[in-house]
């Protein structure tokens, strides 16, 4: 078959990779086979550039139940015979082309990954990046993505409990839509995706197969893209109603004990689901595409094998168990048909009726080439890290700067977004979006709760990928610790530019090394994940943006903590620092530098040993009931954190009240000359807590004993935020700026 560069481009294979396929098969592949190789060797499925690096990440702990990559998502033993399963995945390029369906099917896809583990999905999170909201195109993308997440998530009855949104120019052409799902199962009920028993029947359940999404994996997720128009037909269309029924039917079918293996159809559709199930089981598959139920007529074998139609699952079961399984799907009015069988010989054989249309060894299909490239920092990397305080002018007014930051799109409250998502369905949400640094979900039938959070900081990773990635891991675990949860495990989504460019590969490698270091220092494995490379347009890449989702555990659901100051008369203490510093490194990549001075510069730093001690001490205070609130200092620094705590106040449902703050005289006297760096710097490993005054002495003594530096900042009082000599603002004004900021930016 004469294969042209155009054909190879369409399936995103290089000529060298094509030659490798010919070499392995000892013949030219036919078009169906070539499409299957293209999909499975795509970056999205084959992790050509990331897999060698992913091995650097610790993936096991005493609580891990599955090896990262061995199943569809990571599983963690939380005790009481229960497993929590979770994973984050990108749907960046589909969302750029068609934001509503792109984001919606991103949610649907990650939910099926969790379902494939035999777990009931109990929470959704998402991490989003867009270009600045002053452009109508970026606002349209944001609205479409939020609508898509809400439409799909609300309809399937899985609460959307936490997330983050950031804006930067670098995401204007390449928005990021990362969706995370968390599920729960009894450990003995966890399902496998390994089709390992020859003679088992393969059943395809769910939506009819159509022409939507063909080449999604190779085309959208694995290439840079310039001409979005031409790609529109490759975006999938979701049906959340069907997904909800599919969840119930699959869980009901699993409960019969008759399902041997379960696998979702995601990127690369039937090809990937069937071949990867066989690979996991060390077996082969025989598929007859004539048996695949379809939503359009006249589809070719190529189209059936590569369709990315949504809401489909593949099951393997012994022949005698098939009728009982089909009965369950019948009850839910879901089509479930035998489409093939598991075979002894490790070959993927695809037929159309009796006629063979593709045949290749499973190992050849799944063993994508792996590339280890030489990375090097870009020429201007060192210049970017050079930041001197004296080059940053001091603003005229601290109060005005604080209000400007609170209202800035990256800092302002996300209430206008998260209230469009059902965050309470399933009645487990103890701490929902906006109320604490992480969401807290109680586990019914136990006294436990889990906490979940998701974080990323592209700017810091851009400035120093090794340290920035450490900071991401530190921040997500810190957020878990701030609600009182012990971090157990992480999931990651690696959003980067084109790894074939040395400076991007450098970012990728350094970020993974940084994450690995922080994971070891903080004692958390990465148990699942996804890589989204090629996020660039016209030669400009996004910031290196590893997104990390975290899972934490509270043994007593009642012993959790919110972020807001609950009442007046409490002492406010900063854990993690014995004074307010004003170093250039504190400003590196800060929101203050970005918003007020239009700069992305500097070299951030982090002390992971200190981070670990601070988090552990914060958790202890919460478990002992001593911390009345806890909030980490991140975007906008200390002043923004205090303002947020004041604004959130007691957060009571029966009438929330804000609470003021007055700085101590000692703090006021010791504010560094560069008060801007002290108030708005983002030195890491700092947590703001409120404690009862008569407990303060004891708490400071135990902090000292635990090697945790602490500073008394002030007390909660009145209705103003006051740092004498610097700022004095009514909390009402802070709340107006913070709650109104995003809506105003989106008008």
């Amino acid at each position, binding site marked *: 078959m004469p294969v042209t560069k155009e054909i190879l481009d369409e399936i995103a294979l290089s000529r060298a990779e094509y030659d490798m396929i010919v070499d392995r098969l000892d013949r030219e592949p036919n078009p169906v086979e070539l499409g299957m190789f293209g999909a499975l060797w795509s970056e999205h499925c084959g992790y050509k550039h990331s897999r060698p690096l992913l091995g650097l990440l610790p993936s096991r702990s005493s609580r891990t139940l599955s090896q990262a990559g061995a199943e569809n998502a990571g599983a963690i033993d939380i005790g009481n015979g229960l497993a929590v399963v979770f994973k984050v995945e990108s749907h960046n390029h589909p969302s750029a082309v068609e934001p509503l369906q792109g984001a919606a099917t991103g949610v649907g896809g990650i939910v099926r990954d969790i379902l494939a583990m035999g777990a009931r999905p109990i929470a959704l999170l998402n991490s989003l990046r867009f270009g600045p909201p002053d452009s109508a195109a970026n606002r349209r993308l944001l609205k479409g993505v939020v609508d898509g997440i*809400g439409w799909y998530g*609300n*309809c*399937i*009855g899985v609460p959307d409990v936490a997330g983050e949104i950031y804006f930067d120019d670098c995401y204007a052409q390449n928005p990021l839509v990362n969706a995370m799902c968390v599920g729960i199962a009894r450990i003995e009920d966890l399902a496998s995706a390994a089709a390992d028993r020859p003679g088992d029947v393969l059943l395809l359940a769910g939506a009819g197969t159509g022409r939507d999404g063909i080449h999604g994996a190779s085309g959208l997720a694995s290439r840079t893209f310039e001409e979005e128009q031409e790609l529109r037909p490759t975006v999938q269309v979701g*049906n*959340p*109603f*069907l997904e*909800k*029924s599919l969840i119930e039917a699959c869980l009901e079918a699993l409960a019969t004990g008759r399902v041997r293996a379960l696998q979702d159809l995601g990127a690369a559709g039937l090809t990937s689901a069937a071949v990867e199930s066989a690979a996991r089981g060390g077996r082969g598959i025989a598929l007859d595409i004539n048996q695949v139920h379809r939503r359009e007529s006249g589809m070719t074998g190529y189209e059936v094998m590569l369709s990315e139609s949504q809401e489909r699952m593949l099951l393997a079961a012994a022949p005698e168990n098939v009728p009982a399984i089909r009965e369950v799907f019948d*009850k*839910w*009015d879901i089509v479930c048909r035998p489409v093939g069988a598991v075979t002894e010989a490790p070959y993927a054989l695809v037929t159309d009726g009796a006629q063979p249309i593709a045949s290749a060894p499973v190992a050849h299909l799944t063993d994508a080439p792996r590339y280890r490239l030489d990375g090097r920092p870009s020429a201007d990397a060192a210049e970017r890290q050079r930041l001197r305080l004296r080059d940053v002018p001091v603003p005229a007014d601290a109060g005005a700067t604080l209000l400007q930051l609170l209202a800035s799109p990256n800092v302002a409250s996300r209430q206008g977004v998260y*209230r*469009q*998502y*059902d*965050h*309470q*369905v*399933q*009645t*487990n*949400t*103890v701490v929902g979006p906006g109320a604490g640094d992480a969401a807290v979900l*109680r586990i*019914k039938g136990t006294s436990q709760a889990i906490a979940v959070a998701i974080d990323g900081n592209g700017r810091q990773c851009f400035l120093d990928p090794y340290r920035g990635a450490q900071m991401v891991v530190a921040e997500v675990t810190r957020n878990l610790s701030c609600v009182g949860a012990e971090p157990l495990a992480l999931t990651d989504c690696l959003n980067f530019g084109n790894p074939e460019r040395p400076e991007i590969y450098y970012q990728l490698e350094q970020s993974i090394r940084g994450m690995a270091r922080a994971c070891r220092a903080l004692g958390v494995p990465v148990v699942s994940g996804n890589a989204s490379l090629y996020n660039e347009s016209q030669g400009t890449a996004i910031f290196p943006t590893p997104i990390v989702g975290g899972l934490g555990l509270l043994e007593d*659901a*009642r012993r959790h903590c919110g972020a807001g100051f609950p009442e007046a008369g409490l002492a406010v203490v900063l854990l993690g620092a014995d004074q307010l510093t004003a170093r250039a490194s504190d400003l590196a990549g800060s929101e203050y530098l970005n918003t007020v001075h239009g700069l992305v510069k500097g070299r951030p730093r982090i002390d992971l040993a200190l981070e670990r001690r601070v988090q552990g001490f914060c958790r202890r205070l919460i478990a002992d009931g001593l911390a009345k609130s806890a909030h980490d200092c991140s975007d906008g620094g200390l002043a923004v954190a205090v303002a947020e705590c004041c604004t959130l106040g007691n957060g009571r*449902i*029966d*009438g929330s009240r804000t609470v003021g703050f007055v700085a101590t005289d000692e703090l006021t006297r010791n504010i560094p000359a560069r008060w801007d760096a002290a108030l708005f710097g983002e030195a890491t490993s700092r947590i703001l807590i409120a404690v009862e005054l008569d407990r303060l002495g004891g708490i400071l003594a135990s902090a000292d004993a635990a090697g945790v530096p602490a500073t008394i900042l002030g007390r909660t009082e009145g209705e103003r935020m006051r740092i004498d000599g610097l700022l004095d603002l009514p909390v009402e004004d802070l709340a107006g700026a913070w709650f109104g900021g995003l809506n105003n930016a989106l008008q």
Partner: protein
Amino acid sequence: MRFGILVFPGTWSDTDCHHAVSGVLGQEADYIWHKADSVDGYDAIIVPGGFSYGDYLRAGAIARFSPVMGAVRDFADAGGLVIGICNGFQILCEAGLLPGALRRNGHLEYRCQWTHLRTESANTPFTSRCGVGQPLAVPVSHGEGNYYADASTIARLEEQGRILFRYCEPDGVVTDAANPNGSVDNIAGIINEGRNVLGMMPHPERSCEALLGSDDGNLIFGSMIDAVSAR
């Protein structure tokens, strides 16, 4: 007592309602598949929230044709207690068991948030444990909860004391700002003329435990338990 909880394809508050009436309030509860043609043996029926049939066409418009709805109508006609929550309210309106309709929220956005409901009448099997004027903290989660009925219907509901809940401030004062969806006269829940069928947009099953923020929803389910045991 024994609650029957309807399950349509796309229903998602079924398990939440089960947990509330069974796990929290200790009553018997079963799920009733939408293809069932009888609801015999139950003391009360819950039509829970969700997106029955995806709410394609119009919220509740397809579910009303499910076989079980005929049985629910007979059950209601015989005086049985029926509570429709969120999508359940929409279904009961589509089925003609309650007057009016639920339109798209006035601001056109889905809303999930805590609301407060002013109890307008305590003289019903759903509110006997509440005081008149008592605010209940109960959350909403819907895109189409904007209750509408023509002026004469609203006047009749008012006159007959059938407007059971109005969105209000935490202190019980009914204001425009407290209305999450633009519903006529802040209406959050109404009952039928026989006073045995309640439809409400807010989710009382989500406010049955202090750990989740409020246990005011127990007053509604608890009133139903009282009504049944008083028979």
